């Protein structure tokens, strides 16, 4: 999308939703000053954004038709963890908060509010440095703030659906702010899905965790093969707080996830894990930054990737330990499985350590199915293809078993199995 086209889309956005726009205009100018990142930019070396940069994306329509509504509703019901399990349901269709599909829940300690396009979300929502976050700021569709007030007890997850209606080739730029007060506990499940649509979802999530709070965020990205997905999670963790983030990518033509966690005070703990399947023709990139900015902080990063034939995967994990961040513990793992010769996964750990009393470890593997495991299964009677399929699934499922509740775990497992070249029979697999 050229500067001209982006300007025209910007004007169109303002026409559809008039209101103040100064901050958004500034973000657009800032984005245009550098443009879409290219592979010459270090952080984008392995991911070519051309299909997005050269795509002709429209702005979201003002209203949704009844037929679209019905279609979206059936998508939601299928993907949901279940109304009885969830504390609230927030539905954004093409980036717009849909009041009729959402049920914002009755939990007194969890507040859910709309953020107007011109309002900022969180620390980096204004697009300080991430180019796609600047674009998100400029084209801000609706935003949602989820606030768990001090002492909010553990409850069912708040389900957030980011759905593409399929009504045209639409770019949506939703923004989510998650704030946890002292000792609050909150679970958020983010579903990214579409009905085999064209389009692009460019998501920004900002999380702030106060002292002693606990956030579990699970994101299941199951877009169709023509859709593009980019997401940025920034999180700031206060004293003794913990973030558990689980990312599953089984869809999209290009998927790029940036996770940027700052452990800002002693005792903060980040536990990040992810599973991706890059089926033929797909590209999945995870860029994880963990900033140990305070002493006695901990982080674990554990990602597993599978790529088949022309599928491409990327994992880059950067751990930064600042000079005063003594007695920290940082572990990073990236295990990858290639199912065919042409498949490719690039994995790059990066450690920048400026403190001396630290425990850091990282390990990266890119390999094929283990021969001992193959023989074990075949000696039990499974043919080579079934054994391979089951072992491939098991490789991913080892991390998928962390997902909760059960319906989310099963859905993720089923979607992962469905992306494999020879899916194992489903019954009993989960």
């Amino acid at each position, binding site marked *: 999308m050229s500067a001209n086209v982006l300007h025209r889309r910007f004007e169109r956005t303002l026409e559809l939703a008039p209101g103040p726009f100064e901050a958004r205009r500034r973000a657009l100018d800032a984005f245009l000053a550098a443009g879409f990142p290219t592979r010459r930019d270090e952080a984008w070396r392995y991911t070519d954004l051309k299909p997005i940069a050269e795509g002709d994306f429209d702005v979201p329509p003002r209203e949704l038709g009844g037929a679209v509504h019905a279609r979206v509703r059936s998508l939601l019901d299928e993907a949901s963890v279940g109304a009885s399990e969830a504390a609230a349901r927030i539905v954004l269709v093409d980036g717009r908060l849909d009041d009729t599909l959402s049920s914002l829940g009755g939990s007194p300690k969890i507040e859910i509010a709309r953020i107007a396009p011109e309002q900022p979300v969180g620390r980096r929502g204004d697009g300080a440095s991430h180019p796609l976050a600047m674009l998100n700021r400029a084209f801000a569709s609706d935003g949602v703030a989820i606030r768990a007030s001090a002492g909010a007890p553990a409850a069912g997850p708040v389900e957030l659906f980011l759905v593409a209606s399929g009504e045209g080739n639409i770019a949506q730029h939703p923004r989510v702010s998650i704030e946890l007060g002292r000792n609050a506990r909150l679970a958020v499940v983010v579903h990214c899905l579409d009905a085999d649509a064209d389009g692009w979802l460019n998501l920004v999530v900002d999380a702030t965790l106060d002292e002693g709070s606990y956030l579990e965020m699970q994101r299941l990205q199951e877009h169709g093969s023509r859709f593009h997905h980019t997401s940025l999670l920034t999180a700031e963790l206060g004293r003794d707080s913990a973030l558990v983030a689980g990312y599953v990518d089984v869809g999209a033509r290009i998927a790029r996830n940036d996770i940027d966690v700052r452990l800002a005070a002693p005792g903060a703990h980040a536990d990040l894990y992810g599973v991706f399947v890059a089926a033929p023709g797909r590209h999945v990139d995870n860029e994880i930054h963990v900033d140990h900015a305070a002493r006695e902080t901990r982080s674990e990063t554990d990602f597993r990737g599978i790529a088949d034939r022309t599928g491409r995967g990327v994992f880059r994990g950067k751990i930064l330990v600042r000079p005063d961040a003594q007695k920290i513990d940082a572990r990073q793992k990236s295990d990858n499985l290639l199912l065919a010769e042409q498949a490719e996964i690039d994995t790059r750990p990066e450690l920048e350590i400026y403190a001396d009393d630290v425990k850091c470890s990282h390990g990266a593997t890119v390999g094929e199915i283990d021969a001992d*495991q193959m023989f*074990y*299964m*075949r*000696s*039990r009677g499974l043919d080579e293809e079934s054994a391979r399929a*089951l072992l491939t699934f098991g490789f*991913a499922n*080892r991390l998928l078993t962390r997902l909760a509740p059960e319906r989310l775990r099963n859905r993720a497992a089923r979607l992962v199995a469905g992306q494999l070249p020879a899916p194992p029979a489903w019954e*009993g697999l989960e």
Partner: protein
Amino acid sequence: MLRIENLHVEVESKPILKGVNLRIGPGEVHAIMGPNGSGKSTLAQVLAGREEYVVTQGSALLDGKDLLAMSPEERAAAGVFLAFQYPIEIPGVNNAYLLKAAMNAQRRARGEPEVDAFEFMKLIGAKLEMMQMSRDFLHRSVNEGFSGGEKKRNEILQMLMLEPRLALLDETDSGLDVDALKVVANGINSLRSPDRSMLLVTHYERLLELVVPDHVHVLADGRIVKSGGHALARELDERGYDWVQAEAAAS
């Protein structure tokens, strides 16, 4: 039932088995004993179809069929079962799933009807009890996080479910305490029948006190150098292997 003639096997171009001859009749239990590195495990693994083991000479027939020409899964369907010395961990795949998939793969290969989830659970209940394993085992990943004893019991559980014609038990007794050894022996004995044969590879005589073999063979340097009855196992336990090897060298 099993007929091995002049079997020569190499691993990474190194000869391990150097002409093994062995016949196991239906319903018989044979024990293979021998010092470390004599080729006992190789014999068990090559019969199950491990590809790293290269047969350079000889034959192995199961019910008259050429075992060595079959893939590991064809051997399994023909009734061969190997209880591994070091059972393999399969993270992310639960025990029940693998076992049911294995049963049904074998049944399909033999043209028999498959078991459904209900029948499977019914079948496995009593066998879990016999192996003193809780139902939780079924939902745990295959062998992952299992203790040594749990892994061995799990192998026997699989064997009980798969009901092989020829069971190859590779040092199933190693790493077991007395109580676990009894449980494992019980499981093995429960499968003894006139149309099922077993080959126990073991270092120690103590398993053979509980699973009494019909024949005992000593494998040394890739050949069977002595055969006898249960009494031979006791003698080996008392006297070690040196005298057998000396005797073999003399002849």
